C-alpha cells in the first residue's frame, strides 16, 4: 500500500485512521471516475480487455494516488495509462469481443449491434458508444479520450454511418 504524502507517526508507522482515510478517498474515486474510465475502456477494447486494462489503470492510480488525485482530468490521464497497459493485454483477436449472448439473469442483448460495433475502428466505436450508449456529452467524451470535440464529432458521425450500413445488410 502506498503511503506517499500520507502523514506518518514519528516511528514511521501509519495510523489506522490515516490508512482508512486514504482508502476511503480512493474508494470514492474508484466508484465514480473509475467506473467512467471502465466505460471508456470497454467501449474501446471490449468487455474482457476493457476490464483488464481498467484494473491496471486503477492499480496505477492507487500506487500513484498522491499525484493522480491532484489532476484535473483523472479519467483522461488514466485512459492514457490504460492505453499503455493494453499493449500487455494483447489477445490476438480480430475484433473486440462484445457479448453476443446475454449474461445469466441479465438484460437481453442486441447481437447484431454488438457485432457491428465490434467492427468499427476503435476510436469511432468509443465515441459512438460513449455518446449514444452511455449518453455522454461530446465534451465529456473528448476529455476522456484526450481528443478535440471536433474529432469526436467526426468519429460519431462516421461511426453511425458505418453502423447503419452494416445493420442494413
Amino acid at each position, binding site marked *: 500500500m502506498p503511503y506517499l504524502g500520507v502523514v506518518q507517526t514519528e516511528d514511521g508507522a501509519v495510523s489506522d485512521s490515516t490508512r482508512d482515510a486514504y482508502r476511503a478517498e480512493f474508494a470514492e474515486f474508484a466508484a465514480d471516475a473509475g467506473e467512467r474510465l471502465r466505460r471508456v475502456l470497454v467501449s474501446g477494447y471490449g468487455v474482457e480487455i476493457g476490464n483488464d486494462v481498467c484494473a491496471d489503470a486503477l492499480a496505477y492510480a492507487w500506487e500513484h494516488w498522491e499525484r493522480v488525485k491532484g489532476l484535473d482530468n483523472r479519467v483522461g490521464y488514466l485512459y492514457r495509462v490504460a492505453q499503455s497497459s493494453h499493449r500487455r493485454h494483447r489477445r490476438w483477436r480480430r475484433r473486440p469481443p462484445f457479448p453476443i449472448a446475454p449474461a445469466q439473469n441479465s*438484460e437481453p442483448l442486441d447481437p447484431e449491434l454488438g457485432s457491428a460495433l465490434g467492427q468499427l475502428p476503435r476510436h469511432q466505436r468509443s465515441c459512438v458508444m460513449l455518446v449514444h*450508449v452511455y449518453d455522454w456529452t461530446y465534451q465529456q467524451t473528448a476529455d476522456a479520450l484526450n481528443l478535440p470535440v471536433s474529432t469526436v464529432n467526426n468519429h460519431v458521425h462516421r461511426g453511425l454511418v458505418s453502423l447503419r450500413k452494416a445493420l442494413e445488410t
Partner: protein
Amino acid sequence: MPTDLNERLANYRCGLDDAIASDLASRPANSDHRQPHRRRVFAVASAMVIVAAGIGALAWANTDRLTSPSDTGPIEHPQITIIDSAVPVEPEPTTAPASVVPAPLETSPPGAVIDRLAIGDSVMLGAAIELVDFGFVVDAVESRTFVDGLETIQTVNTQTWLGDVVVVHLGSNGPIDDSDMTQMMDALAEVPQVLLVTIDMPRDWTMGNNRLIYDAATTYPNVSLVDWAEVSGSCPGNCFYEDGFHLRPDGKAYYADLINAAIEDN
C-alpha cells in the same frame, strides 16, 4: 427489437453493463484479474517475434517486438523461415523507430498457411504490432521496393503459404512497373481477399504508383483498396513523425484500424 439506430444503441447499455458485471464477477477475488490461459498466451507470444529481412525473408525470432496471433494455448502458427540465403540486412536509420530485428531461423514445417499476411515497407513497419494485434503476420522491411515485395510474395506463393488475406502496402520507395503489378496480381490470384494500400509520400512516383494501385483494385475481383493517400489526413491526433509519413502511435492505431476494418467489411 427497435429499428431506430439511436434507440438500439441506448438499449444496448443495460445488457452491456450486465456483461461487464458478469465478467468482473467471474474473476477470482484478490488474485491476478487476468485469466490463466491469457497469461500463458502472453508468455508464449511475447517470447516470439516475426522477423523479416532481405528479399524473400520471413522469420520468427525470440524478441517481443513482433508477435504472432493466437487465441489460446501454445502458438500453433508455423515458424516461417528465411526462404532464400539472403543475409539479414540491418534496417537503415530513419526518423521512425525500427520494429524488426532480423534473425533468421532455419526450418519450416510443410503445409504451413498464413491466414492473414501483411507485406510492406517502413510505413507498415511502424504499425506492425498493431496489425499483429488484429491477427496479421507482418512482413515489413524498411526501404523495401515493390519488386522486393513481389519476390517475397512469389516465394511465399511457391511454398503455398498464402491464406485468405494478403495486404500489400508497397510503392513508397520507387516507381512501380506495370509488369511488376501484373506479376503481383498473378501471384495473388488465388488469394480470396487482397487489400492494396495506396501510398502517401511526397515523391515523384506517388501519383503514378497510386494510379496503378487504383487500376488493380478495379481490375481484379479479389482486390480491394484502402486509399491511405486519401484518408491519412483524417488521422486524429499526432499521427506522423516530422517526415510526414512514418507513423507515430496515433497513426499506427489508425492505420491498423483502417486495414482491419477494410478486411472485416469485405
